[in-house]
């Protein structure tokens, strides 16, 4: 494979029993990690070992997998690695831990009567807008899971699937929290949240943005747009600036646990998206062309994402102790830093 040193050869030189290693795995470091051994080439490719082409194709001529499924091009898609090396076992460990922490927070709040300590205005905010973010997470889930199939290597497909699973977990955590609050405080319904999502003026630019994500047909665009635009601006804006910080200030015992766990999952996807962007931009042959495409995507999505954040000011204004201006500034700074880390211009497209 282009530019790759065969792992088997490397190990043979070190005197390890070559027949006890997966020699098709090209490790990123000196030795193959469990993640690499268990993931790589589980999705076969005509660019790897399927030297006879695709055996099964679409009626329109697309092969089992299709190089044209993304505008981007690189020498070897299977050379990409998730920097945090997430595979199924740590995924379940972390996901289950998130849910356990949330449940423990609910138990603790009930046992100690902590919900009673929340100011009325914060409770009102939770009733009105606390669950609306679930629709954002769910909307992103619905496109991520649909685009995962077309990705051109196992490491990418698995990453997108697990990202989708995290979005669904986050969405459901908000809804279940709403159920718990409904039980404890009353009048916290998903119907009211849905009504806000569908009708409230402040939420409409966000809904428009999330619905537009459903029109993405290029799986790589999904990674770039979600990871470099929508999540750092809107996602972090909602989770950290609208929910986490104010909830802490309002003695909310559960919301911070939900938001912090979601932010921890976002940190994984941020790293994944950043590594992916660096990977495509530094490709020797296609890097320059990829940069044009990625910048075009950013120019297409960033203004709308910023506008969606701006439109949320009225929502922030009803959340006690929320600071819209500071929150907006923080997410913008973080997003610019992320783009810079990817080697992209921090200039905001018009």
């Amino acid at each position: 494979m282009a530019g790759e040193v065969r792992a088997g050869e490397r190990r043979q030189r070190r005197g390890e029993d070559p027949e006890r290693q997966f020699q098709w795995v090209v490790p990123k470091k000196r030795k193959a990690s469990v993640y690499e051994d268990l993931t790589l080439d589980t999705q076969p490719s005509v660019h790897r070992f399927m030297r006879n082409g695709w055996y099964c194709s679409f009626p329109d001529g697309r092969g089992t997998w299709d190089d044209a499924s993304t505008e981007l091009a690189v020498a070897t898609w299977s050379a990409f690695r998730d920097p945090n090396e997430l595979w199924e076992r740590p995924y379940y460990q972390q996901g289950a831990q998130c849910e356990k922490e949330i449940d423990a927070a609910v138990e603790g709040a009930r046992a100690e009567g902590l919900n009673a300590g929340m100011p009325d205005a914060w409770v009102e905010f939770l009733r009105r807008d606390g669950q609306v973010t679930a629709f954002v997470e769910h909307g992103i889930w619905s496109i991520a899971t649909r685009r995962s199939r077309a990705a051109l290597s196992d490491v990418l497909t698995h990453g997108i699937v697990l990202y989708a699973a995290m979005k669904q977990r986050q969405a459901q955590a908000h809804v279940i929290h709403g159920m718990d609050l409904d039980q404890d405080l009353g009048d916290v319904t998903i119907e009211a949240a849905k009504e806000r999502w569908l009708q409230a003026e402040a939420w409409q630019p966000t809904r428009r943005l999330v619905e537009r994500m459903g029109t993405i047909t290029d799986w790589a665009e999904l990674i770039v747009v979600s990871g470099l635009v929508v999540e750092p601006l809107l996602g972090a804006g909602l989770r950290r600036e609208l929910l986490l910080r104010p909830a802490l200030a309002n003695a909310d015992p559960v919301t911070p646990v939900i938001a912090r766990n979601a932010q921890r999952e976002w940190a994984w996807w941020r790293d994944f998206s950043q590594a992916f962007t660096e990977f495509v931009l530094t490709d020797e042959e296609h890097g320059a062309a990829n940069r044009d495409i990625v910048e075009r995507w950013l120019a297409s999505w960033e203004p709308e994402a910023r506008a969606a954040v701006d439109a949320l000011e009225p929502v922030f204004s009803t959340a006690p102790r929320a600071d819209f201006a500071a929150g907006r500034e923080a997410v913008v700074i973080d997003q610019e830093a992320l783009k810079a880390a990817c080697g992209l211009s921090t200039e905001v497209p018009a």
Partner: protein
Amino acid sequence: MATQQTRRRSVTQTHERVAQLGWKRSYHEPVPIYDTRYVFPDKAKDPMKQVMRDYLPMQLEKDERVYGGFDAALRAGMPTKADERWLQIMKPLILILVYAEGAAGRCMSVVMDVVPNEELLNGYHVQFVDEVRHIGMQMNLARWYAKNTPDPAGWHKGQEYMAENLFTRAGVNMFSHSFTGDPIAAGFTMMTVIETAFTNVAFVALPDVATRNGDFIQATTYSSVQSDEARHISNGYATMLTVLQEPENIPLIQHDLQQAWWIVHAFVDPFVGTIMEYFSTDRSDEESYLTKWDRWIRDDWYRSYVEQLGKMGVDIPPAMFERARERLVAGLHHKTAPLAFATWPLAFWKFDPLTQTDFEWFERQYPGWYDEYGATWEAYAALADPEENALLLSGLLDGAPPFCFTCMLACVLDDDMCHRTCQDRHGVERTRFYCSPECKWLDETNPGRYTGDRNYFDKHHGKALSEVIVELGLLRADGKTLVGQPHLRTDRMWTLDDIRAADLQITSPNITTAEAMGLPCGSWHDEGDPFGAVQGDGNGFQPVTLYGGGGGTNGDGRNGYSLDDLAAAAVGSTPWVKL
């Protein structure tokens, strides 16, 4: 620490709330990248009611048990206690099943791209996450075997070998049906046929055989996999019930379900039947593959599921199911097994010759078996030693049946074999052979589906066997001993020099059969295109001209197919296949 338990949330209420997360889009409609012929009703029902708060700890618990099992198996010395014959066949089996898991996951994604019913989407997605779990567990099993069992050769380049092996490539072909083409047809292939019918064989019956052969960790892994399959089967049933609500879908269901059934049968039955019966040393199980098939496939699936669809207006003639069973009775896997064993130099695992105990077991299960197949197996055992300087393949390849263009396995049943001629993308006349009229029907009614350099031996026609072995990298670390061997011994292993001494030149049965029958070229290999004569660049095919074999209606030996014919066949208004 809080002493009060979280009040138990109602699963139904939780699910009802979670189901509210879907909404009708008003700014942008979702854009699918796959097309379906099916229409969908407004309402559907999710039978799974899976919520992540319950799902994640449940799966973690199952994971902990499986991964703990690996440690326990090591401490118990399982790698050396498990039967070596059995451990060898795990090499192709595990790797093709890993591909199957990936196919199942990707099936969920294509189905989600076209199914608008929000109620079903959560279940599909959870299944994709399950499949990522299954891939991890099964690759971990492969890794464990590679690191701990006595003969790891073959695992070391497993994914490379898997893509090119005579049998596993047919598995890649079959499982790819479950995520290419119409997503709903693909969904039937995976959820309704593979998962509902055949996982009981692959993930229940096969682990039983593993346990009988001392391989407890395979059984531990696959039992955990199977514990997820019940939910996947529910997904398939929910999909079926949803599309059944629209009468115009019924002809499509009838057509697609039969096609799905056939392609899965055509690969799984000879492949799994051979593994189960020819790679088990333990002969304590008096239940043959056919008996298991009757229990799991005929009774539990066909009679309890497919026949019941008749009450909902789905009229599927029983002929195709009966035909599959007749093929098993006629010896589908017994005729495939000798060919598999004879091609041992091209495999990435070892084949153990059958013994007297095996012969007796086969004779008990299939009276008359020895008379029909015994001589071949005696010959195989006699030629296992390189000192004999002869390969069973030499004699077998000359008279071997051609390989089926659709299912890619050998056309082992003479009465079923058929063919047609087509033009390749350069306008060159070529012959396609099929193992059955049903496989021919699949190819005829799905133009463009079957691509790639499909006939295994075509590209190697005329080459020395030793040359092909080197080309495919089928050598052990010493660079001279073959990975595949016709016996389990560690001495008298065949080397490349032994193969050269046996002096075998590969001939493609597809080429020689076409020549013998006076038909146009039987090869679908294209010297100018590494991906074969069917397609141009490996990512997009150029449609071939479709017409049938025989006398033809066009005056030139061709039977013309109009686009209308193909469209009609695709919706099931034509007879499914004429036998």
